[in-house]
Every structure is written in structure tokens, then in C-alpha cells.
């Protein structure tokens, strides 16, 4: 269940990136050549990308930690159920 959700998340994230990546706005730059002056218009569009990158990292990490925590809870529940069953049978 959790793995499935993880897989879906991954696939969705990948497809979203791919869709956004479709029309290249500017020709590919080959290396970063230091340019002292860049028009301010160049600076603005990168903000959403930076925000997106950081939020992806945060969300993925927290989601993954949550899935592990949930799976541990499930296994512990099973163990308790088994112990209870054994206790009942022993009586």
C-alpha cells in the first residue's frame, strides 16, 4: 500500500517535471560562463523552480519517514495480536 503510494508519487513527480520541461525557453548553455550582468528578468522565473526543488525534498523526506513509521506500527499491531492470540490459547 505504502510502496504503491510511493511509486505513484515518484511517477507523478517525474511526469510533472517532464511536462513542465517541454518547451525550452532559451538555447542550452554549455558551461556556466560568468556573466556579470544579467537582465533582472532572468532572475525572477527561477524563484518558483527553487521553491519547487526545496518543497519536493521536504515533502519526499517527510512522506517517506511517515511511511516507515506507519509500517512499523502495522507490524507491531500484528505482533500484539499474535501475542494476545497465544495468551488466549494458553488459558
Amino acid at each position, binding site marked *: 500500500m505504502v510502496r504503491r503510494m510511493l511509486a505513484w508519487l515518484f511517477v507523478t*513527480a517525474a511526469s510533472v517535471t517532464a511536462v513542465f520541461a517541454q518547451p525550452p525557453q532559451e538555447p542550452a548553455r554549455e558551461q556556466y560562463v560568468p556573466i556579470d550582468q544579467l537582465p533582472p528578468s532572468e532572475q525572477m522565473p527561477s524563484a518558483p523552480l527553487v521553491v519547487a526543488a526545496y518543497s519536493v525534498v521536504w515533502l519526499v523526506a517527510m512522506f517517506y519517514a511517515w511511511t516507515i*513509521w506507519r509500517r512499523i506500527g502495522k507490524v507491531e499491531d500484528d505482533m500484539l495480536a499474535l501475542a494476545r492470540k497465544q495468551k488466549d490459547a494458553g488459558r
Partner: protein
Amino acid sequence: MKKAFVPLLIVATLMFAYAPVMIAQAPFESTMFLLQKIMYFHVPSWFAMFAAVAISAIGGIWYIFTNDKRGDQLAVAGAEVAVMFGAMGLTTGPLWAYKAWGVAWQWDAKLTIALLLELTFIAYLLLRKYGGPGSDKLSAGVALFGLANVPFVYYAVQLWRTIHPLNTVVPSLPPGMREPFWFCVFGFLLLMTLLVAMRARLERLRTTLDDLYLADDES
């Protein structure tokens, strides 16, 4: 590890909470300005992934040659965490490249290896999930072979022109950028260790549960 887990978790949370402050104060890079700040999370996520891959391969070797279940638990945990950090790197990377290179993807040595390692470890997880009996040994082999494959892919793809910044960029970071960078690397590695520990604990619990079920069936 058990005693240190909660304090370390708090440390990791605090580090991740403080990281944006440090990153915001770091100087702007001359060509990419704000965009370059993706680096502080992009590069550390790859560091963490390679560390997790190494953990998985070591756990795999340990398991193949000693038949010790703990090695297998470590290998699974490492593989899953590696896929997770790889997914982070593979989303932040194209977001950066989209603006910096104009294209989101290039068949360049580093990008190809990253994708291939990610695919190798997704295959590892698929094998664990659907492989059935005997797949634990085979998956250990997959982790080991996956690691051995890296230099070949790297060399093979070198003929494609590399536009990814070289590794030498890292030690040459100017002061002001260096501190937040290493702060983030340390934070990611800590997070990676904690996640592997958590995941290995889950696997250990599952083994215990299976043993309990077996014992229950026999009695």
C-alpha cells in the same frame, strides 16, 4: 543507536529547519543568482544516495558470505533509502537544469549514472516485492553488481560531452557558500542514517514477526 535515535532526530529536524536561513544568507552566484541555491539540497541528496547505495552493497556482501540476516536487513534499508534520495536528486536536478542549461535532461555521464543507479535500485525493490522465495540472495547480488557497473557506465558515457559541473566545483566553493553547503551535506547524511536505521528496524521487526508466526504454527 536506539538511545541516540531521538536526540539525533531532533538534531536533524533542527538542522533542516535552520538550513533555509543559512542558504538565504549565502552569497548569490554570479551567473545563476537565486537558481544556484538549488545546489544546497541537490548535491547533498546525491551524497546521501551514494552513501545509502554503499550501505546496501556492504549489507549485501555481508549477507551473501555470512548468511547473517542483519546484513540483509541493512541491504534492504539502504536500497529503499537510496531510491528515495535518488528521487530527490532526480527532481531537483531537472528543475535546476531546465533554467540553467535550457533543457531538463541531457545524456551526460553523471546524469546517466544517476538514472541508472536509481533504476538498478528500483529493480532491487521490485525484485524484493515480487520475486518470491530466494530473492533476498539475488537482490544482494543486484546491489553488488549495480555498484560494479558504475565505473563502466561512467567511462562509456564520457564520450558524450559533459555539461554537468565537475566534482572539483565542491572544494572550490567560495567561503559563504561553503558553510551552508557542508551544513546541508551533514544534515542529509544524518537524515539518511536515521532513515536507514528506521527502515532496518522495520525489517528486523518483520523477521521477528515471521519467526513468531512460524513458532505459532508449530505449537
